């Protein structure tokens, strides 16, 4: 039998290994919805782990995970003791995801709420089409971060590699380090003091000291909000 093993009163151990992901996820989901703490051994960078969580429990991955970890969840708390692949927390509605290492492309794609916290670097298109919630990256973010963001915040304590905030709608990208290049119709503004206080409070809640930073806030230039024939070249991205 490879079912969950109760270690202590509220701690459940699940081994991923080469078992069917549906089976692994069913065990994780049941435990999290019951408010338990789950430790997942041998995640082996496999895809779609801990998707669709609900409830107040916690999942700790003892190693790196693959694509879409925690995606489509509406609750739960996930800690990855390693790196995560593409689309970490894609479509997240609520809950928190912490990645101790680096995260791949498209962290928090289309997320609608909750927090994603990456302690290392995040790949390209971080927060693509984000609707709400916050993505905090302590290292650098890859190119096209905030691409087509509709709302919420990407907060980067390191550098933003390039094409930052391309085609942003109403989301914002906060960068404490350097912005290498801006994307189409993106502009940098100095954030208002109350907004800075809000971001610092959010960071403090994650145990990150965000004070005394040189915050640059990337927002939409609003030129792409309405199509104008004379701006057609801006719409043609290649």
């Amino acid at each position, binding site marked *: 039998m490879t079912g969950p093993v109760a270690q202590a009163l509220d701690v459940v151990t699940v081994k991923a290994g080469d078992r069917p992901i549906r089976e692994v996820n069913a065990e994780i989901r049941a435990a999290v919805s019951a408010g338990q703490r789950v430790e997942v051994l041998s995640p*082996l*960078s496999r*895809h779609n782990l801990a998707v669709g969580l609900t409830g107040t429990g916690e999942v700790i991955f003892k190693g790196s995970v*693959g*694509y879409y970890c925690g995606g489509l969840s509406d609750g739960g708390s996930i800690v990855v003791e390693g790196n995560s692949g*593409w689309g970490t927390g894609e479509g997240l509605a609520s809950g928190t995801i912490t990645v101790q290492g680096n995260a791949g492309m498209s962290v928090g794609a289309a997320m609608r709420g909750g927090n994603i916290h990456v302690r290392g670097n995040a790949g390209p298109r971080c927060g693509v089409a984000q609707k709400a919630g916050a993505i905090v990256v302590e290292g650098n973010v890859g*190119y096209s971060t905030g691409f087509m963001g509709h709302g919420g915040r990407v907060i980067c304590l390191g550098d933003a590699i390039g094409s930052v905030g391309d085609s942003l709608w109403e989301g914002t990208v906060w960068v404490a380090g350097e912005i290498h290049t801006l994307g189409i119709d993106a502009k940098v503004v100095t954030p208002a003091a109350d907004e800075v206080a809000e971001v610092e409070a959010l960071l403090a809640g994650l145990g990150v000291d965000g004070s005394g930073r040189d915050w640059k806030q990337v927002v939409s230039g609003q030129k792409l909000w309405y199509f104008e024939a004379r701006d057609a070249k801006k719409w043609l991205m290649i």
Partner: protein
Amino acid sequence: MCGISGRVRYDSGTVGSDIVELAACMRHRGPDSTGFAVYGPRRERGYVVRGFLAHRPALDAALESAKGALEVHGSRLLGEPTWDESGQPHVLFRMEIDELDDVAGWVNDVESLEGVELLSLGRSLEIVKDVGDARDVDAKHGVSRMRGTHALSNMRLATESLVSPVASHPFWARPFPDVCIVHNGQLTNYYTWRRRLERAGYRFGSDNDSELIAVWNSVQMADGLSLEESLVRSQQELDGVFTYLLGTADGIGMAKDRWAIKALAVVDQPDGIAIATEEQALRTLYVDEVDVINYDGPLLTEVWQASAKGEAA
């Protein structure tokens, strides 16, 4: 969407079994057909040839004709040819041959035989590709028993041309010995370049855009560019979406287009290099936590030598 993988083993060991594992883990990326390129022990003299014949009953006659063509080109068979016993309507064969006075000439002669296509020719390169997933192809052709320095594989989800062994990756850079490619993506200026290369005398075995990348790079290198220089030039001259691995006798080169949407993850360890579209495939070889390098930026290139660092190539 396809998946590609590569492997270098500095101990020249069980590279065949490693490449099958990498490919098997990514079956979901393309189960139509699977192909492997394995660089075995390098010959000082002569070539190893892998071929495809559409009609199994014609095998004896085809091998006899290929042998006759060898004599015309000042060569001969070294040992008896072998072939797969899968019982499929088509058959894959292998032969070892002596030096040729004109490699392209012999290749043309053999491929003018009905239903014959050469899958690879080289001092060390052997390409095996067939319909089915990695385990199916391994069962038919014993890829996991092959030993060598480096290898490539591709799991193909056919989008641009037919499902058949000859339309599958890896593609040999006909007629350049030991050069081949696996590619994830598609080219948009394929026909422009194909017409140019055909005018220059090159012949293509498929209508697959990936084959062109292998020939294109080989032509650049024949014109004096290094592998690195050729990879960089390809990012300007070839238009489209690509992450490709180019196999040569000395190692594996990689180039990625400027949009960089096709993922590639790499493990670089003292025992060798593992390369795959998905990190989870790498973890079939490196089960313990290991540093994984993601090549996810635009316009990246890399060359992995098949000999251990510090050793002469």
